[in-house]
């Protein structure tokens, strides 16, 4: 029992990374801009957070710089796709390359940097006393995890129940109509791509300053940015479903790491302990699972006739016939 709680507790922490990244991508995609550069922005975030924390000793300053840096680089994608009408897929890919390249160059030697003060972890009084759920969600969790809890309802409420959220959806579903109503489509899209960048940067900072501290070049993110993009499709652009998916993935990642430790598994000799090479098959699981989740999400979307925001992927050109 304790082992399960430990895995789920660590899973929530590692799922927080995916949560931030997928929430950011949901917000950007809801405005009609698909940003495949999440992985690159996360790398920028992880690198700058760690680097600033090492140099100044302040992890919070690191987080601030990380989100701003990632937000800044997201604006390259915004400019290329919104103003220059370039293909969002290719531009997003380019952003991934750019983010990875810049963070590799500026992060040179950072992996050998000394100790750094990390973001604090603490337990929530009372809530952590709840049996089973308490220790999973509220005991010794990182401050980022709690911020993640706040973001889920906030994002949902913002998108579905507020006027700016309605504008956000309008811009993503039918920009020509939004434009006719006096909503500035271009400005809003720039802004929400920026928000997506901020959250991707936060996800990166969460990795390097909380969940698995340090800078390990491209291995720092290990494809989590792409998994987040996949989760958005599974989540059908809904923050609550994205949260469920993120925490499930986090738990899966932890399970894979932890299952190789004990000599006994359910009373039997642990095959993963005695054959460490089987670990390579365990490594495949999150990626294979992403594909399975995509199949489920895509089938459900086809059945319910749910879909991506209608204008997703298409640049808005004033005067051209919308959709």
């Amino acid at each position, binding site marked *: 029992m304790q082992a399960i709680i430990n895995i789920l507790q660590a899973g929530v922490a590692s799922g927080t990374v995916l949560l931030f990244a997928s929430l950011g991508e949901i917000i950007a995609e809801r405005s009609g801009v698909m940003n495949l550069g999440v992985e690159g922005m996360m790398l920028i975030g992880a690198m700058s957070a760690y680097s600033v924390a090492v140099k100044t000793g302040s992890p919070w300053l690191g987080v601030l710089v990380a989100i701003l840096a990632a937000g800044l680089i997201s604006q390259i994608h915004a400019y290329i796709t919104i103003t220059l009408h370039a293909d969002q897929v290719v531009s997003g890919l380019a952003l991934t390359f*750019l983010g990875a390249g*810049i963070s590799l160059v500026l992060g040179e030697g950072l992996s050998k940097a000394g100790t750094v003060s990390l973001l604090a972890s603490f337990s929530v009084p009372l809530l952590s006393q709840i049996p089973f759920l308490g220790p999973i969600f509220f005991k010794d969790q990182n401050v980022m995890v709690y911020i993640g809890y706040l973001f889920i309802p906030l994002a949902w409420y913002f998108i579905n129940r507020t006027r700016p959220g309605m504008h956000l959806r309008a811009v993503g579903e039918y920009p020509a109509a939004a434009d006719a109503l006096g909503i500035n489509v271009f400005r809003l899209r720039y802004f929400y791509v920026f928000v997506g960048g901020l959250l991707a940067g936060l996800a990166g900072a969460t990795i390097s300053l909380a969940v698995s501290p340090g800078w390990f070049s491209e291995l720092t993110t290990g494809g989590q940015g792409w998994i987040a993009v*996949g989760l958005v*499709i599974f989540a059908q652009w809904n923050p609550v479903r994205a949260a469920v998916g993120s925490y499930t993935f986090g738990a899966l990642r932890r399970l894979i790491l932890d299952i190789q430790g004990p000599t006994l598994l359910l009373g039997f000799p642990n095959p993963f302990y005695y054959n460490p090479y089987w670990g390579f098959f365990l490594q495949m699981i999150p990626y*294979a699972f992403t594909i399975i989740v995509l199949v489920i999400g895509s089938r459900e979307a086809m059945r319910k006739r749910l879909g991506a925001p209608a204008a997703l992927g298409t640049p808005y050109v004033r005067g051209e016939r919308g959709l």
Partner: protein
Amino acid sequence: MSENSSVQPSLQKRRFPFRLYFEPRLEEPPRWYPVAVSLGAILFALIIGGILIKLAGGDPIRSYIHIAEASFGSVGVLSDTIVKATPILLTSLACSIAFRMRLWNIGAEGQFIMGAFGASAIVLTPVLPANTPAWIFIPVMILAGMLAGALWGLIPGLLKAFFNVNEIISSLMMNYIAIAWVNFWVFAVWTEGGFQMTRQFPKNAWLPRLLDYAKAIPLFRGLTTHLGLVLGIVAAVILWFIIYRSRWGYEIRLIGDNPRAAQYAGINITRNVVLVMMLSGALAGLGGMSEVTGVVHRLQTSPVAAGYGFTGIIVAWLAKLNPLVAILVSILFGALILAGREIQPSGVPKMIQGVILVCLIASDFLLRYRIRVVRTGEES
């Protein structure tokens, strides 16, 4: 001016004495124009890259001079450049054919690794005995490599065709699975004395290299350019004919440009998605086969999975998805990667690739739109 304000309220800020107008280009630009724009974009990218190198504490001019010397300075290094360009050429062909259909296969890296695995399996399983003559060995390995790559492309292709699964993410996830799969075989099954590599292939399973003929032609001494280059060029020519001169290529281009029109024309999109993903995977797999039998001569993850699949994306885009142009462009990128190995900080080549791709995509705007400069005074 007040009349204009009702038409274009967002352009009302008059801070400059002139204004830029973007007009869609209606006529085809002259032939030199796209080339000039691409070159301009690369130049611009190199300047930005230089600034970034400077920021990271390097010396941009020395870095660039070093790249040029270390990759084109002599026949020997030119040969090394071509060796680096060969896998990039094949992965860029893989991307070209898929991107032409707007099928975003970014799994060339995984298909490349699986191609290397498929070819290695022939030697290491062993499917063929070690003393098989080269003229049987090499064709069988080519087939095995292409088959393994095609299989790896087939999976995201089927998922796209029948479940409408986003191929970008599924093909990318397949990359990670491929690396873990090959690692398992390298570490657990085919390891040589516990090291992270398999034993060396017998000489008759190596692709012939120029230096093999040094006895007859002394000029070839020490040149490691291998048969993979020929495979790549032949593949590029065949691919060019498929895309631009065959009925199938016409279908692919039509689906890419206008899928709805293609559907009304009776073109089977589902079948083409599967076929193109397989062809794309097979080309990347051929690249992996050529790398493992022409350069590494054993299966080993780190030198094989060196990101050629991702560089192929950039090269394909820079070559405007034209297979013949891809030959030239991949040599340039081979130079960048070869010389980049010695440059500090070590991420520089990757970063420059990223900057180049960003500038290229941005520069496409100049091909689609014309910029007209209008003085504010003239307008009223």
